């Protein structure tokens, strides 16, 4: 188990900043970071940081880069249980660029910023004990996410299903803002609320909204399925259908991924004739899937 407290990197950078400046600051920071974390920072980052933020140590791109470099090194060294402390909604944490899936359970204690876990490719669970921002798991290949708080726009955007990946599975306990699973090509999202235009341009994957009915779901979708409570409205290109036996099987398979996280009892018995499930999210609630419908591409508009 490895714990990275990002405040430690911030403190180290502040120390360097208090005793140096300009090029000297960058060189000293590079040296100290190598001593402490055995990682280096690219030269290009110096110019980008100075151009955009006036100096290196106040540039958020420095902390994103270092966080990802340190974690990547730990994974390469064989670590597969990592905790991050004090993320302070830093952008782009968890972009490691591994070409093959890695085994990694990651827990983030706090809020994560835009594009957390983008391009992810892992086996395990990444848990955020806080909120997540735009583009959570954007273009993700594989992995499981559990977000304890809410997530802003574009959760699971461009979720990737390829010849070697099935997409990312995401649970958002307090709901997503607009355009969840936009342009998704695979993967699964279970959420307790989703904003306007969720499922926009979906071509595959499943979006299951267990929260209140949404608005304008599925605009321009050509594939995939949205399960949502009756009363949800659709955008152009999407059609509402009743659930059939096969849908109950699909719902069961998606919920199986989060069975422990949602403390679901008797999931094995779930079917069209036994459509109620006791689900523990923020609180226990019984959900009756007879109150749900599915939203799919309107066959009259897809050619």
């Amino acid at each position, binding site marked *: 188990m490895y714990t990275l407290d990002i405040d430690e990197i911030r403190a180290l950078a502040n120390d360097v900043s208090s005793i140096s400046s300009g090029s000297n600051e960058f060189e000293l920071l590079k040296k100290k970071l190598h001593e402490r974390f055995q990682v280096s920072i690219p030269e290009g980052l110096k110019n980008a940081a100075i151009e955009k933020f006036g100096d290196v140590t106040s540039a958020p791109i420095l902390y994103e880069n270092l966080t990802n470099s340190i974690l990547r090194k730990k994974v390469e060294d064989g670590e597969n249980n990592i905790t991050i402390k004090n993320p302070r909604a830093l952008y782009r944490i968890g972009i490691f660029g591994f070409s093959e899936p890695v085994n990694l359970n990651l827990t983030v204690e706090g*809020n994560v*910023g*835009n594009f957390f876990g983008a391009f992810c490719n892992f086996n395990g669970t990444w848990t955020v004990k806080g909120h997540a921002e735009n583009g959570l798991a954007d273009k993700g290949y594989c992995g499981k996410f559990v977000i304890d708080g809410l997530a802003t726009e574009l959760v699971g955007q461009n979720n990737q299903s390829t010849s070697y990946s099935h997409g990312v599975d995401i649970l958002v306990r307090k709901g997503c803002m607009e355009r969840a699973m936009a342009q998704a090509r695979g993967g699964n999202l279970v959420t307790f609320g989703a904003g306007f235009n969720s499922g926009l341009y979906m071509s595959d994957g499943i979006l299951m909204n267990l929260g209140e009915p949404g608005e304008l779901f599925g605009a321009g979708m050509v594939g995939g399925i949205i399960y949502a409570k009756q009363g949800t409205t659709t955008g152009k290109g999407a059609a509402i259908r009743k659930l059939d036996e096969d849908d109950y099987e699909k719902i069961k398979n998606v919920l199986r991924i989060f069975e422990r996280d949602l403390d679901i009892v008797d999931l094995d018995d779930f079917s069209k004739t036994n459509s109620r499930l006791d689900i523990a999210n923020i609180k226990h609630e019984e959900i009756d899937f007879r109150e749900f419908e599915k939203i799919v591409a309107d066959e009259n508009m897809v050619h």
Partner: protein
Amino acid sequence: MCGICGLMMDDSSLRYSPVGSILQDMMESQQIRAQDGAGIAIFDKNNAGDSFKIKNFRKEGMSNYSIDEVESSSENVPENLEKLSQDSECHFFSFENEMTILKETGLARDLDRKFGIRKMNGSHGIGHLRIATSSRVTPYNTHPFSTTIVPDIAIVHNGEITNYNMLRDSLELEGFTFHTDSDSEVIAVFLASKILKHGDIERAHREFVAKADGPFTYIAATADSIAIVRDKFGTRKGIIGYNPGDSDHPPFWAMATDLSALDVVGATTKIETPHPGKPRIFYRN
């Protein structure tokens, strides 16, 4: 990808609420979004009085601007506004009673170094980080935007008002004056025109949402209110949070583009997202 933020203190009777310091932290935490300009508007009722300030940027040389401030009584405000509008070297930026707007090109921390934002007190305020998309990088195109129509109104905006020309044309036909080329200015002028017409700020926001096209989130402040408003399809984000009071701050509501801005000032309870098209307003108590 501009960054916007705002806050309303729970108890506006506190004489020294650290609005400047909180706003500055919120802006610096969102600096990654934009680096072309930064600005704030802070409202402090201790400043309210019988006179008004009309502030302008006066061009000096090729690209430098100095701030030109004209103190006016309510009687000579129209005359002074007229005089300034004739001066081609002058760019209007704010019409103030209790409000103070300060803005400049560059980073948020440079704004603080120049004007001492962290030392400013008040009941509420808004802040902006600009990345220029539709007008030049100059101090007068930096947010917040104010108007010469009524004092003490300021807006900050992230996104685009795509039918800006149409809205501007119709407001100009009604006789309202614009002072910049920015689409964001139309929000301030529209709201001010409605305040003049019916005096209901919530209704003014609803009317703007009904008329405006495009992806946008804006935060608008008047002497008594602050509102965060998203376009009707929610295509630009906005987040609200509450700090119930801690060792650094009295209780306040905060709103911003990025969660990081709420995180850095401890406004992470009661996190919510404003419903698209429905203004979320906080009134000064």
